[in-house]
């Protein structure tokens, strides 16, 4: 079996990575050791990021919120800043796994795993999150939609660590909705998920709308076509029916052991229909 490193600072991480370029980075282990159990690791050195100081914590930077890459889902859910500015992200995090998984899994891990079913991803797309990537020599910020390049694929370069997620506060939305369709109510992997944020005028007309879907395309699915079809309309059955039609025609799901392509396609559209009542309920 291999070595396991527990660096305490980013400096140490970079030093380790320069000495062990084959090393696998992990934070909670809820993806790495679930996909292939620890014993199948192949003997590569492991670098556990759970104790790296610079990767923890959620902080307020005036116009944006910065979430450390190793922030656990439980910490996201408990965070006052997240609840206040990005309740959608909190709702999505609450639907991940179960308490122990949320105590271990991190938002950075969820992003780097780049699964189309990653539950924190649709809200991050909606809020145009940036990921902050650090390596020994430099730091860069990349929009999440550019960082995730395919299922399980990211623009993370060798020697880089996802250090933080940055979210702008002025998203202009006041209505939020997240729904996850899984095979059960906990410990479930999304068969389809739908995140929605909107700004609605006093007269009930939609000023701004953003939709993002999980598990219905190779990566999180967003579409300006769909977002546009809400603008200057009320959240009524007609609007939603149109949006649902567009959704069903634009998504590109696959069939797997959890659900068929056809089911994912129709459910993705159906989930949009549910907004009608929710808006009415929130007044």
């Amino acid at each position, binding site marked *: *079996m*291999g*070595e*396991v*490193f*527990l660096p305490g600072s980013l400096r140490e991480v970079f030093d380790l990575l320069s000495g062990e370029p084959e090393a696998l980075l992990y934070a*909670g*282990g*809820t993806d790495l*050791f*679930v996909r292939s*159990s*620890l*014993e199948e*690791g192949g003997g590569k050195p*492991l670098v*556990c990021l*759970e104790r790296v100081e610079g990767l923890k914590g959620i902080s307020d930077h005036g116009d944006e919120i910065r979430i450390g890459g190793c922030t656990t889902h*439980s910490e996201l859910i408990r965070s006052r800043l997240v609840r206040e500015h990005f309740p959608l992200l909190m709702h999505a995090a609450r639907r991940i*796994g*179960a*308490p*122990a*998984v949320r*105590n*271990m899994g991190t938002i950075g891990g969820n992003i780097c795993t780049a699964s189309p079913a990653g539950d924190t991803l649709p809200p991050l797309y909606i809020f145009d999150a940036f990921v902050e990537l650090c390596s020994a020599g430099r730091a860069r910020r990349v929009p999440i939609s550019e960082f995730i390049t395919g299922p399980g694929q990211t623009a993370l370069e060798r020697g880089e660590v996802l250090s933080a997620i940055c979210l702008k506060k002025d998203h202009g939305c006041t209505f939020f909705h997240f729904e996850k369709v899984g095979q059960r*109510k*906990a*410990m479930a992997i999304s068969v389809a998920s739908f995140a929605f944020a909107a700004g609605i005028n006093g007269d009930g007309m939609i000023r701004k709308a953003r939709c993002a879907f999980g598990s219905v395309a190779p990566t999180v699915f967003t579409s300006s076509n769909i977002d546009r079809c809400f603008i200057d309309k009320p959240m009524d059955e007609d609007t939603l029916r149109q949006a649902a039609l567009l959704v069903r025609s634009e998504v590109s799901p696959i069939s797997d052991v959890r659900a068929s392509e056809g089911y994912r396609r129709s459910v993705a559209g159906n989930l949009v229909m549910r907004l009608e009542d929710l808006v009415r309920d929130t007044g």
Partner: protein
Amino acid sequence: MTRKIFFVLNGISVHVETDPARRALDVLREDMGLTGTKEGCGRGECGGCSILVDGEVKLSCIMTAAQLEGKDIVTIEGVCGEGDLHPVQRSFIERGAVQCGFCTPGMVISSVAFLNANPSPAREEIREALSGNLCRCTGYQKIVDAVEDAAKKMHGGGRDG
């Protein structure tokens, strides 16, 4: 490749010399002889291997031995005080929450952590708190009853009682 890993196990400082990439679960069961922590899946999917790490529930089957370093670890064997059962354990016995018992250690661990943070939970909150601990015998009902009962024992009142 082995190294010495130092941690606190059920209140006692211990160290173990082992391969750091072994599973924490195996170190606890094989090296420390604490077989109360169970393996039901090895993939973080069943909760049987739940332990407390600095008071938080974690899954020892997806933790490396290295991650035990410097941590305060509590297993089912360390949940009770000197000789006394933890109120959660007493309630599990009294309320018939135990059948085959294989999920029980993980259930107790999850319940203890949950009740420490939520003194008077609603039934639905208990169901959520235990949702990562699969049980195939009980249908969960008597386990939820037991946690409600333990909340009353520990804090003198559930939400509706």
